[in-house]
């Protein structure tokens, strides 16, 4: 079994105590935009998540995101540098959202994750803890199904004290059981 899947399952197991009444799964796709990172261009992001309902309108979302940034362009020279790949697995805490309710339901999120950034071409491979926050809008079309749109900003501190930042816009769907 692949490592990210194992980690997601582990997060699900350890999140069980906070479960109140519901569980869901979701998937989303979209674009991730590097923020002041000249060595990357916008690329595709795919997210897979579980959603565990908790009291007080909160829910926990163990998730995995796969991002493949686009190849950068430079003004001064022709580059064949490839964009980085980022695999991030973590947990977001959401406040709000549909979770089985019908209609538009906004939500806020904040989370932490492990961000593994690699670029095969230049032998770069780094794993760091990163933070995320964002806003979303969930549209419950049925008790068991919702559409999910979110804007999410990510900051990953680097070893020397700098940071890599990006923002993503994604759309997807959630299934509730």
């Amino acid at each position, binding site marked *: 079994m692949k490592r990210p899947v194992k980690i997601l399952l582990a997060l699900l197991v350890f999140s069980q105590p906070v479960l109140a009444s519901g569980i869901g799964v979701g998937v989303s796709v979209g674009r991730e935009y590097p*923020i*002041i*990172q*000249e*060595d*990357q261009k916008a690329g595709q992001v795919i997210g897979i998540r579980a959603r565990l309902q908790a009291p*007080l*309108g909160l829910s926990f979302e163990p998730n995995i995101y796969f991002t493949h940034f686009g190849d*950068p362009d*430079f003004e*001064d*020279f022709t*580059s*064949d*540098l*490839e964009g980085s790949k980022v695999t991030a697995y973590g947990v977001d805490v959401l*406040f*709000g959202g549909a979770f089985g309710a019908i209609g538009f339901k906004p939500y*806020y*999120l*904040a989370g932490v994750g492990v961000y593994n950034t690699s670029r095969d*071409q*230049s*032998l*770069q491979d780094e794993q760091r803890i990163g933070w995320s*926050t*964002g*806003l979303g809008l969930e549209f419950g079309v049925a008790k068991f199904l919702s559409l999910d749109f979110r804007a999410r*900003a*990510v*900051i990953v501190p*680097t*070893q*020397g*004290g*700098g*940071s*890599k*930042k990006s923002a993503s816009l994604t759309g997807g769907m959630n299934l509730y059981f």
Partner: protein
Amino acid sequence: MNIFKRKAGVISTAGILLILTGCLISGTFVLSVMIRDLQVSANGENYYINVDITEDQDWQDHQGNIKDIDLVGFELWATNNTGVANKFSAYVADSLSSLDSLSTRTEIEEHGILVLKDLPLKATGQTHITYGQSFKYIASLDKLKELAEVGKFKMFAVANESNINFNLDSVLVIVTFTAGT
């Protein structure tokens, strides 16, 4: 519940603003310095390149706030003047090193640090190593990062076989760094 919702909204919005504010004062930048007038050493055994990225505007803008050297790469053009395919390597030394354009192959191999190993020289004509290709020839990225952080260093290109006559036409040094306050 509404108060809690408002608080969550404020905290989340503040988080986004905090990240966006951070963006204004930190980022990852790429600078490139083209070196065309390469010096052949007095003894004709190697090429001597004085690399100085401190004149670059990006470097000057962020000097003193550099947090990480992310990547150092090259784009090179070299011409083999013989009909025999060969390879060449590059060594570096810090700007205070006694190595210079008068240094011999033996001195460079003994006192320099090998950073690019076995770059190909095709039998005749010009060989072009792209930025993306250069990474697979890098032998000591840590040393390159260390020198790039200083901004000035000496570089020497030496053919693997001493009887090979080649021209190192030009070298583009490309440095990616993360800077912030």
